[in-house]
């Protein structure tokens, strides 16, 4: 038997060796990344430094700074720039996916309104999250104290306390609350799809929509994704906004993007005359 390699054998062995080295290198790199991940702070990842001026990165830094302060010192604020909103509803869908919202419950709808008269017409898109009012009418009407303002200004709902009287739904002048009536998108299909019953996080607790169990039967609303905020993440709607039309941060921090925007831009709030003191600001729009 000859020791001389055939051309076929040579190519086979060489390619195996190259593949082996490549795979081994890749795997070892991946292994390093997995190990390193908990120790590396997300914003210090190499490659992101050139994105330092990117609004989402700036806002993430703002959140990280805010989280170092006590809860009562934070003033979570959202600013929506209507000049930049393209009405894609990505924020609505991002929110629905994040909070596993059922039919009839949308925390952040994007309203479309026609402005002007022909031929000078335009479409205005107005996203409407919960305004997280400083003086919320919804909390006052609750007969069981299931909803209240947190120290950081977010209006929350204790699903296990809520009796489902729906008074808060009518009390909200922004229609930001809806009743979870226990509907499922895939109810009348051969099988209820698992994604409708999987766990989700609201008010930093784990929930799952099961028959006759909260949050089914409760009032539901946007909560600025406090479960994400607590992990240093932006609310889902802010992350998914393709036009970067939504800003989020701690208003009490003068260096935060939202504080700077409020100081420099002409902002407005919805139905401010009611004295609700909304914490969602709008730029643009008429």
């Amino acid at each position, binding site marked *: 038997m000859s020791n001389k390699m055939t051309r076929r054998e040579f190519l086979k062995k060489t390619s195996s060796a190259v593949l082996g080295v490549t795979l081994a290198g890749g795997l070892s790199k991946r292994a390093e990344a997995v190990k390193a991940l908990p120790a590396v702070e997300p914003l210090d990842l190499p490659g992101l430094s050139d994105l330092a001026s990117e609004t989402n990165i700036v806002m993430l830094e703002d959140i990280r700074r805010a989280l170092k302060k006590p809860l009562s010192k934070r003033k979570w604020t959202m600013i929506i720039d209507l000049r930049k909103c393209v009405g894609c509803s990505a924020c609505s869908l991002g929110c629905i996916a994040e909070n596993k919202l059922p039919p009839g419950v949308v925390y952040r709808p994007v309203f479309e309104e026609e402005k002007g008269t022909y031929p000078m017409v335009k479409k205005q898109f107005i996203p409407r999250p919960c305004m997280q009012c400083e003086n919320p009418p919804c909390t006052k*009407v609750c007969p069981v104290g299931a909803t209240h303002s947190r120290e950081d200004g977010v209006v929350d709902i204790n699903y296990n*306390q809520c009796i489902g009287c*729906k008074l808060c739904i009518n009390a909200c002048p922004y229609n930001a609350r809806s009743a979870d009536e226990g509907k499922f998108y895939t109810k009348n299909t051969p099988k209820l799809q698992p994604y409708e019953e999987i766990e989700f996080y609201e008010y930093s607790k784990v929930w799952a929509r099961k028959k006759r169990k909260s949050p089914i039967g409760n009032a539901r609303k946007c909560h600025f994704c406090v479960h994400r905020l607590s992990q240093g993440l932006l609310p889902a709607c802010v992350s998914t906004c393709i036009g970067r039309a939504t800003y989020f941060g701690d208003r009490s921090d003068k260096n935060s993007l939202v504080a700077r925007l409020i100081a420099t831009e002409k902002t407005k709030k919805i139905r401010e005359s009611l004295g609700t003191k909304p914490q969602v600001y709008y730029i643009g729009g008429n």
Partner: protein
Amino acid sequence: MNAYGFIPPHPFNIFIITYFFLGGLSAGAFLFSVFAKYIKKEFAPLSDWGFLLPLPALALGLLLLVLDLGHPERFYFIMLNYRPTSMAWWGTILLNGFGLINLLYVILKQKYKLLAYLGSLFAVGVAFYSGLLLYQMAGKPLWHSPFTVLTTFVGALLSGTAAVLLLGIMNGKIDGIKDALPGLGKIIGRVIILELILIFVEVISLIGGDVYADATVKILLWGKLSVYFLLGQVILGLILPLMICFKGANRIKEGSMLLVLVVLLLIGGFITRLVLVSAGQGITISLPGGLL
């Protein structure tokens, strides 16, 4: 305005409308019975049965309220909490207090005048309750109006009186007071005039308001609820009964005309609650110009 997935919320359904109607009716029935027994004694025969009416009406109303809850099994949470900012919490106290006093008064064979007057205080609260509850919803111009609060109170008096009279017709108690009926008709007529004035002022006060107030006026006068409001609430429930009270005062002695009067008042009273609830919550943020 449209928005993906957004359904304008109409959380108060027919259960709540009926609950408001029955709550007002029971309070009105009690107040009329006190009025008949201790003030205008010529109507006293009606009061015996009149005092029996509030409890079942109240019980049915509260049953509907509990069934409408998203979590009916938690209904007692209201009683375990101190929530003075919530009108619904006060309503629970008023309804329970009123129910208990009414029950005690009936059990004690309707003898104690003091109990009747104490019950009247609670009954006034219950008659005002639905209006005050709705008044808390500042974003809804129709509800957040002092005239609406007064309208619901007067409406409760009319419905309660009509219910007691209907009971009197059914059990024959009316036969003994036939001569007093035209006078009663005139009293009811004056209350109807007051209700009409309040409704008129209520609508006028909305004209020239913000987009929400304008939309409310439109929905009432020529929108989808105009038939219920103009035909049901105003004409059927108030104008026709008013005509019967004054033009047909003598014919009220005849049972059939009195029956027409009380049935119209009851139908009108229910439609009043239906229109009030539906028109109030029918105005949502999705109306053009409602946001910015």
